[in-house]
C-alpha cells in the first residue's frame, strides 16, 4: 500500500510516461461540502484496449516483463474503494488513458493527500520533454500549472534548469498553501 494519495498519483503518472504520453493532465479536486476528494490522471499515451484496461486492475496482470504482478493500479483502486469512493478507467488504443478515483474526504481509512509538491516537482523536472497540466481545487479556490505556458514564457530554457525548478517548487508550495487555507488534507 502507498502511504499517501500523492504517491499513487506519482505512480499512475509514471505509467503514462511509460506509455509515451506527451501530455499528462492531473486534476485534484476537494469539495468539502460534498465530502469528496477526486483525482483524475489523463494522458495521451499509447492507451489500452477495453480488455487490457480491465485486466490492468487485476494485481496478477502486468505488461512489464520483469515479473508477473503489477500493483500500481490495484493499489489506487483499493485505496479509493476502501473509503467509500469510486474508481474507473477509460482507455483507447492510440488515444490515451484516463484514470479516475474518488475518496470520501472524512472517511477514517482515507490516507492523506500527502506531498503533491514533491509529486509534481519530480514528474516535471525528471521528464522535461513531457507536458503536464496540473489543476488543484479546494471548494472554490483553485490554481492551474500548465507546463506549455511555462515553455512559451521560457522559450529555449529547459524546465529542469535549476532556476526554473526553484521557481516551480515555490510556485507549487505557495499556491497549494493558498488554496488549502490552512487545512491539511
Amino acid at each position, binding site marked *: *500500500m*502507498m*502511504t499517501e494519495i500523492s*504517491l499513487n498519483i*506519482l*505512480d499512475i503518472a*509514471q505509467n503514462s510516461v*511509460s506509455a509515451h504520453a506527451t501530455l499528462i493532465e492531473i486534476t485534484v479536486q476537494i469539495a468539502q461540502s460534498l465530502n469528496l476528494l477526486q483525482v483524475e490522471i489523463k494522458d495521451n499515451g499509447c492507451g489500452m484496449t477495453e480488455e487490457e484496461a480491465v485486466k490492468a486492475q487485476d494485481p496478477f496482470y502486468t505488461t*512489464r516483463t*520483469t*515479473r508477473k504482478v*503489477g*500493483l*500500481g493500479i490495484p*493499489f489506487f483502486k483499493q485505496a479509493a474503494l476502501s473509503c467509500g469512493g469510486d474508481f474507473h478507467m477509460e482507455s483507447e488504443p492510440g488515444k490515451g488513458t484516463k484514470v479516475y478515483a474518488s475518496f470520501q474526504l472524512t472517511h477514517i481509512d482515507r490516507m492523506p493527500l500527502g*506531498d503533491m509538491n*514533491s*509529486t509534481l*516537482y*519530480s514528474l516535471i*523536472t*525528471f521528464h522535461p520533454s513531457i507536458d503536464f497540466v496540473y489543476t488543484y481545487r479546494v471548494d472554490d479556490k483553485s*490554481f492551474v500549472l500548465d507546463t506549455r*505556458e*511555462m515553455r512559451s*514564457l*521560457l*522559450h*529555449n*530554457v*529547459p524546465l529542469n*534548469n*535549476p*532556476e*526554473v*525548478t526553484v*521557481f516551480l517548487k*515555490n*510556485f507549487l508550495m*505557495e*499556491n497549494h498553501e*493558498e488554496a488549502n487555507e490552512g487545512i491539511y488534507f
Partner: protein
Amino acid sequence: MKTLEELQAIREKMQGQIGLRSETASQTRVVVGMATCGIASGARPVLTALSNAVQEKNLTNIAVVQTGCIGLCQYEPIVEVFAPGKEKVTYVKMTPEKALEVLEQHLLGGKVVDKYTISSEGRI
C-alpha cells in the same frame, strides 16, 4: 496566488547560458528506481534529496535520473551509480540521509560506501 511572471526574468537571465549542462561522456549517472515498488518504499524523498543536493552544490558532472523497476523490489529504494569507466555500484534500502552520505563519500569523495551496497546484504 503566485503567477508564472517570474519565468520571464529567468529566461532573460538564462539566455546564452543554455547548453552548458548537456550530458557528456564524463558524467556520472545516479539512477533511482521509481516503479510502484520503489515509490511505495520511499524512493520519492530519496530522489528529491539527491537532485536537490546536486543542484545546490552545482555538480554539473552528476546526472540524477529515474528508472522503472530494477527487479530487486525487496531492496527498494535502490540507487545505482554508473561512473564512467567503473563498475556499477548498487545501493539498497536507501533513505534520504543514506543517499546524501553516498553523495558525499562516493560521488564526491570517490569512496564506495560499502555498508549500503547490495553485497553488504550478504546475498549477492
